[in-house]
């Protein structure tokens, strides 16, 4: 009898909520690394907060904020090589920025422009996936190709707790294990799929244990501890690169904000719950450690925030200033070459555009 009640559950943690941890384990992280991780998380938080505000001001379209999930995103992305492949959902903005997505491009995206969809050449990020869990299969295929070509790159599928309920997640996990390909399934369990809480999503105590169904290893990590996330991810990535196959990582975290700017979380969760999680904020605990080590001051914080704010403003303005695409462009990205009937439609649109002048 396989009894889920008897599975031992451990959570990997290095830095606790108050910035404390086992000194021997902490010693593995250089000051430089700690500063970098903190700076990246702070940058991500500032960008997220700005984007949220800009959406409220009507400057950008619907936006899915990630505040609270910085450690999971930055910690995992820090463990990757530039040539590794990332398959994000809509919430992995911090991951994408770390992995080379220009901030200006993201503005194109949230302004609903076609140009927002094109990653620069050489940035190995697959277009943001809207269909929950569909990208997990693409990541497996991509990793499979790396393996067949003998290339050392790892693919990472990012997804949420809700995504684990979809059939595609299951098929992806199974294919990955059967073909033993270098893919990491990185789940940010932020406790909610829009309004649906974890306990309504699955009766499984953890997501990590779902790996057992595929003969795969699964790890549960404190997703608000950037050190633990990095360490876990690094080990998984190295194992995958060595040909040891896929792994599932569950990063336990929390979405502090709404699901998207169209969502009102007060409909489905109590403020006290949010407060409990605020105490576990990933930035706060690392900052406590840095301060204790005398590595970070209020002045540095202010300077960083100001700098990122300028960066955001500049990126936004550059996006606004660049020419917006038109309906005409749409026809160019359907096939390698537009079939006759489609080309006719494009002509019709161009004629109409010309007649009515540039709008």
């Amino acid at each position, binding site marked *: 009898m396989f009894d889920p009640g008897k599975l031992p559950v451990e959570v990997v943690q290095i830095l606790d909520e108050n910035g404390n941890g086992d000194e021997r384990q902490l010693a593995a992280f250089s000051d430089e690394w700690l500063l970098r991780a903190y700076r990246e998380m702070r940058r991500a938080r500032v960008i997220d907060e700005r984007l949220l505000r800009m959406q409220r001001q009507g400057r950008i379209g*619907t936006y899915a904020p990630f505040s609270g999930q910085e450690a999971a995103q930055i910690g995992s992305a820090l463990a990757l090589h530039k040539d590794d492949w990332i398959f994000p959902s809509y919430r992995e903005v911090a991951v994408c920025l770390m992995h080379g997505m220009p901030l200006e491009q993201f503005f194109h995206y949230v302004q*609903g422009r076609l140009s927002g969809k094109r990653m620069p050449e050489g940035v190995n990020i697959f277009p943001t996936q809207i269909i929950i869990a569909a990208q997990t299969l693409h990541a497996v295929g991509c990793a499979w190709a790396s393996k067949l070509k003998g290339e050392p790159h790892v693919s990472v599928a990012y997804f949420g707790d809700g995504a684990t309920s*979809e*059939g595609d997640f299951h098929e992806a996990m199974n294919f990955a294990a059967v073909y033993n390909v270098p893919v990491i399934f990185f789940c940010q369990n932020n406790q909610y799929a829009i309004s649906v809480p974890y306990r*309504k999503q699955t009766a499984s105590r953890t997501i990590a244990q779902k790996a057992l169904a595929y003969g795969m290893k699964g790890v549960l990590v404190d997703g608000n501890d950037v050190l633990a996330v990095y360490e876990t991810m690094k080990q998984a990535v190295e194992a995958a690169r060595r040909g040891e196959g896929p792994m599932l990582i569950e990063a336990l975290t929390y979405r502090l904000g709404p699901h998207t700017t169209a969502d009102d979380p007060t409909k489905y969760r109590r403020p006290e719950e949010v407060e409990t999680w605020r105490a576990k904020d990933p930035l706060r605990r690392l900052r406590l450690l840095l301060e204790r080590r005398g590595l970070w001051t209020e002045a540095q914080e202010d300077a960083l925030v100001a700098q990122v704010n300028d960066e955001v403003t500049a990126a936004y303005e550059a996006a606004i200033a660049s020419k*917006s695409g038109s309906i005409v462009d749409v026809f160019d990205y359907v096939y390698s070459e537009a079939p006759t009937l489609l080309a006719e*439609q494009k002509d019709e649109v161009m004629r109409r555009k010309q007649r009515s002048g540039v709008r």
Partner: protein
Amino acid sequence: MIEAINEAMRQEMERDPRIIVLGEDVGENGGVFRATDGLLAQFGEGRVFDTPLAESGIIGTSIGLAINGMRPIAEIQFLGFVYQAMDQLAAQAARIRFRSAGRFSCPIVVRSPYGGGVRTPELHSDALEALFTHSPGLKVVMPSNPYDAKGLLISAIRDEDPVLFLEPMKLYRAFRMEVPEEPYTIPLGQARVVKEGDDVTIIAWGATVPLAAKVAAEMEAKGVSAEVIDLRCLQPLDFDAIIASVEKTGRVMIVHEAVKTGGFGAEVAALISERALFSLSAPIVRIAGYDTPYPVPSVEDDWLPNAERIVEGIETLLRY
């Protein structure tokens, strides 16, 4: 319209305890558009279910619920996600009656918002009705206003067959319209003549109906008398209403949001060219989404059927 839909479900749930509601975020949250608002509070956890995030699961379990005596109303959060449930809809629900040679039926309603013009992310705006009108065993209903939405939804809920009920998202809050408080039904398979006219027939459904009606009203001022037909139901189809109008005007325009090629407009045009060919005095015009994926928000208004394109189409028709 969203209130009319909510009211239809509430009243039917009061009438029939077998009716349950399930889907993503339909409970506490009351649906991402508030279509199911208040249902959990009124009917409790035994009637309204927030499901795990799995569309095939939602439809597949609804089938099992239905064959064992329940009457599930399932929500697919946006129609673009229905691809995940295609087998359960088109190969399972649609064929239960056939597969069991009549022993079982599958009275489920699948509600889903569809359509563009509201600046959604990718795959939230697709009009995919044609996938289902090509799937025998399914009924497909597409209301265009609150009154119809309520009456058609009640009919759909009472129907013995699986019904796909597609709600034009853009119209959810577009109307102020008095809707009778008491429950009422509108038979599935009856089109509605929105406006009578003699020169041109405009056939539309769902989101494009108010647009067609508006353009028709404007054209009236210019001396063009356009008849506007709201199909309301694509399956069963009120073919008599179409033919009657075509025989009167001889000029036909079909307006839908779905991509043109293989859209349900093709079927309507084909039926006309099969049964009323000699009534036509002009080639049939289809105004539809272009043959591309649904585009990005910044250009969607130019992609969707709009007044300009409809006027152009009418002018073309009148040239004959």
